[in-house]
């Protein structure tokens, strides 16, 4: 069975390492981490919705741009699995390796859903901690 060699290391990568946000931004304020995750959630979700629409129309240049943007944003918040998948998916789209890209897209959907769930968990935990403090 061909699982697509480029995707094999994905499971070894963490879904979300929020410490990456502190490293990138150079500060460890909890408010910064939650604000950044909220921004990521809003903007990345918009891109994923666009990719979903475009996938059905075959507008691969546009999809490539969105995947490229998602890759950087995911890396900025420590969504390592998503960032790595976007890197592989972008390369497949750029080279029009549609056999591999068709294989990657369902994985992309799953990894995005898992990443989103992790992001939401962090945001929710912060909200609960804030209401406990009040």
């Amino acid at each position, binding site marked *: 069975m061909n699982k697509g060699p480029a995707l094999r290391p994905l499971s070894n990568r963490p879904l979300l390492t929020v410490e990456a946000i502190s490293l*990138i931004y*150079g500060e460890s304020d909890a408010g*910064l981490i939650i604000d950044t995750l909220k*921004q990521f959630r809003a903007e990345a979700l918009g891109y994923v919705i666009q990719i979903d629409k475009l996938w059905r129309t075959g507008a691969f240049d546009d999809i490539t741009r969105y995947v*490229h*943007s998602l890759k*950087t944003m995911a*890396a*900025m918040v420590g969504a390592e699995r998503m960032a790595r998948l976007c890197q592989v998916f972008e390369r497949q789209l750029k080279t029009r390796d549609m056999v591999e890209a068709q294989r990657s897209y369902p994985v992309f959907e799953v990894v995005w859903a898992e990443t989103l769930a992790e992001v939401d968990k962090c945001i929710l935990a912060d909200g609960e901690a804030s209401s406990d403090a009040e």
Partner: protein
Amino acid sequence: MQSNNAPVVLFIDDEQFLLNAYQRMFRQSDWQSLFCLTMKEAYAMLELHPIQLILCDYYLQDGTGAEFFRGLDHKYHAVKRVLLSGSSEDFTDELIKAGLVDQVLSKPCSKQQLSLVIEGYLASVKSASCLS
């Protein structure tokens, strides 16, 4: 803390998320940061502000960072140019040899990486202006 004659740095990226990040990172820096999403806005900013350093993303809404730097008027020849690339394509040597950019950085960049690069270029601009 910025003084009135603080150096000016322009960030260009088509991702608001990235511009917000740079804004957050450098809200308390020794230079003034300006931000824009498109080449068109960036050309206008250059006319309006004494910009000394530009950090520009490769993929923009209205072109590429390489096209942006290629389109800069000769009067901005002293402005330092850094290209921020999220791509694995290796065009670094080509762009530097062509004199289009001074440096290419791979995204995502940390505050620490960016600070070092920005401070280095601003120091070189300052020493060049002292000599002239």
